[in-house]
């Protein structure tokens, strides 16, 4: 068994975060594929440059290795609230000036928060890169917040929660599923925050998070587009290199899950549900530096079982028999700490949730006995190979891939090895991964239903 909360590789992760394994420390440049150049600044900030000279455009991104799972207990939502607040005033920029300046230069900017990272980006003409760096490096350490900023922006994020979650029973259901899956790790707390905690977030909470995590030695700069790596390096040294590292950053260690001893089940009812369904999640390992094999097998498992209309679940549950309207499997190995593997089934009219769940379980059990169809695996690998070609059309997505991976404990080498690791997965690896991950006592099963509906 590989998954449950095995004890964290804190030391290793710490090393990666602070020393930049995989990067030449302080200057050596790694020349890599996809026109990717990676290096580090003396203060520990990682830099990845992705070149694409077909259009005079650049995406400039800063990724902080801090997300909602790094929050202090009781302050859920503060990572995301702070993300909003970073568009307010700094020592040299007025509130809103950064976005207004980007727009007046023909660009667009935005930001995002996840469990493991927070990112900021601007997409502009390539000759505006320096202006972007000047403003982005400024708000890394110089924000000036007022009580009024907090009050107004707190209302905005509560409305955001209303839009994303409160108005959507499927979102509320997913939130409850995660909370049931993670008893102790903060992956069980929603990124946007629990409403009651969001309502009481204060300036001090936001500043404590900012002061600790917003520092060059906790960030990755990704610049993708029509740029020259040496020029990027010079600009990065000028703007980001001038900011001292935060010596008090500390170890990125989160509380881990206790051993899960029994399956967890929930039934959620909401009058706004028109189409009931069953969702199942299992604890699952994630991609780790130099050790991505288990995760690769799980990615292939999710593709084989529920990745398309020719996958096993669709074949058996939608085509051979019409038990389901939709089925699917989902897994992403990109996670700092152990993650989940998910299955869902949306039953056809007249099929109960119990019947749907039983049919799904039977298909998975049969799959483990029968093995992987060689032709199917070949098709999936062909598609993965081709996706590397198609991906070159979207330099933005390449930049995101690096930003995300480097914010979740992986290295440039891991990102570049990943396609080969996927191609090396065998039929036996996939079945073994299925045996390891599909352990009912490590699972959460949820039924989402309309009010008053029978299962």
């Amino acid at each position: 068994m590989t998954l449950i909360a095995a004890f964290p590789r804190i030391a290793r992760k710490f090393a990666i975060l602070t020393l930049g394994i995989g990067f030449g420390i302080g200057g050596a440049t790694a020349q890599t594929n996809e026109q990717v150049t990676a290096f580090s600044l003396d203060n520990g900030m990682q830099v990845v440059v992705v070149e694409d000279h077909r259009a005079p455009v650049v995406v400039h991104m800063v990724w902080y290795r801090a997300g909602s799972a790094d929050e202090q207990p009781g302050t859920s939502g503060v990572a995301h609230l702070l993300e909003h607040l970073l568009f307010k005033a700094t020592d040299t920029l007025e509130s809103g000036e950064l976005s207004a300046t980007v727009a007046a230069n023909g660009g667009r900017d935005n930001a995002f928060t996840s469990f493991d990272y927070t990112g900021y980006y601007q997409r502009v003409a390539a000759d505006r890169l320096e202006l972007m760096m000047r403003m982005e490096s400024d708000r890394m350490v110089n924000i000036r917040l007022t009580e009024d900023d907090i009050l107004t922006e707190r209302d905005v994020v509560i409305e955001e929660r209303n839009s994303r979650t409160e108005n959507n029973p499927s979102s509320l259901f997913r939130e409850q599923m995660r909370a049931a899956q993670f008893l102790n790790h903060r992956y069980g707390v929603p990124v946007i925050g629990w409403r009651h905690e969001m309502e009481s977030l204060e300036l001090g909470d936001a500043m404590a998070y900012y002061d600790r995590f917003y520092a060059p030695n906790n960030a990755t700069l990704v610049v993708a587009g029509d740029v020259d790596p040496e020029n990027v390096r010079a600009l990065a040294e000028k703007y980001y290199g001038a900011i001292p590292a935060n010596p008090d950053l500390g170890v990125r260690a989160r509380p881990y899950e206790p051993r899960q001893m029994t399956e967890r089940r929930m039934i959620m009812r909401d009058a706004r549900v028109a189409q009931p369904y069953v969702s199942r999640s299992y604890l699952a390992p994630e991609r780790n530096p130099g050790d991505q094999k288990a995760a690769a097998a799980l990615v292939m498992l999710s593709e084989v079982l529920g990745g398309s209309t020719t996958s096993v679940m669709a074949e058996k549950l939608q085509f051979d028999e019409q038990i389901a309207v939709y089925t699917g499997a989902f897994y992403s190995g990109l996670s700092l700490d152990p993650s989940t593997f998910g299955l869902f089934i949306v039953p056809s009219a007249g099929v109960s949730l119990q019947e749907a769940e039983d049919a799904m379980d039977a298909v998975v059990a049969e799959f483990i006995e029968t093995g992987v169809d060689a032709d199917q695996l070949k098709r999936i690998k062909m598609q993965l190979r081709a996706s590397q070609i198609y991906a070159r059309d979207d330099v933005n997505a390449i930049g995101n891939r690096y930003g995300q991976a480097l914010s979740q404990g992986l290295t440039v080498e891991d990102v570049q090895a990943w396609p080969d690791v996927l191609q090396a997965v065998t039929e036996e690896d996939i079945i073994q991964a299925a045996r390891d991950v599909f352990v009912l006592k490590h699972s959460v099963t949820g039924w989402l239903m309309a009010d008053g509906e029978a299962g």
Partner: protein
Amino acid sequence: MAIFGKRFGFGLVLAVAALTTLTALPARAELDIQEITTPGGIDLWLVENHSIPFVALELRFKGGASLDSAEKNGASYLMMGLLEEGAGALDSRGFARAVESIAASFSYKIYDDSTAISAQFLTENRDAAVALLRDSIINPRFDPAAIERVRAQVISSLQSDEKDPDEIAGRTLDQLIYGDHPYGRQKEGTLETVRALTRDDLVAAHQGALTRDRMSVAAVGDITAEELSALVDGLLGDLPATGPALAGPVEPVLTEGITIVDFETPQSVALFAQPGIDRDDPDFFAAYVLNVTLGGGGFESRLMTEVREKRGLTYGVYSYLVDKDQADLWMGSVASANDRIAQAIDVIRDEWVKMRDIGVTAQELQDAKTYLTGAYPLRFDGNGPIANIMVGMQMQGLGVDYIDTRNDRVNAVTQDDVNRVAKRLLDPSQMRFVVVGQPEGLAQ
């Protein structure tokens, strides 16, 4: 892991001017568009780019879901969903496996006024990909089992739409504005019409939807003009020459007021609409520039500043011009908690009136223009996006020279133009709000 919390809006415009008055435009992407007429007589646009070994191909056909009669509402939508569910010698699963085995990707979409087929395929197996695409377009099977399976999916999503506040708002507004015109119906159909559709209905919809007289074609990528001409003739030459009559014009019915749809949910969702402007109207660009300042999606629009930044009433508020073939609207959206939506709507109305009466400042106009002109070349950043832009231009009847003149048209708009158009078009007395939720303090 799902990314969460992307923030929609921000901004407060009247910031320090030093950084906002840059005038130099970014360099334009070199774009060599070849206009080609194939030996078979099909017009198409091509941008050759051999740096990545694949082609992005875009096909568009005027018509779309508005070709459906009221009785057959949803026929075109279901038909498009079945094109990849069995074609030629292959059944649904056989077709899907064949497409996967060569890593091509096809998508089939339908809108009110058009259908869209998009394809991406590798150079190494281009012929096999095009043969499959051709079968799906020319020889779809409409096997009974596939029809029932996809029909069940459509019905499932229609049932979900009935309990989705955003969907309810959209349907209610369409119905109010367009009545019995096809635009007043949902392209997916209704539970009743979808249940009643027959295989013959789908075959008829297929015959009418994809015809050569209403077709636009664009390609970008690793292919020469000669290769593409042969490819397109083989792919599309056997389509029917002409299609059925397009939907006729409609006069949108727009009156001042609020329509409330009671729905138990914590946050009210609002859509609003007033008359818009045709793309061919000489004032179109002035209206387009005006909308950027009013509520055009940036963090610094007036609606975003007043409703979100100053008052925290919403996560996002927008306005946008809707240019359908037979109707033009100026629309917008906002969502606020049930006890705050009334205030949000008041602020939006006030801003509408203020913009009509006072107009934009010189600085606002300048910012909107530098945004629009600077953002335009940034759109041309990949084979897929460029093919999309080119096919869209053809559908709008624009020539290839439009790309070089478009920014000049934006720059030609004056403050007087914008403020005159604001007075001409912005009209709170024809602005209808549809609010879905349990809004407090709001009267119908």
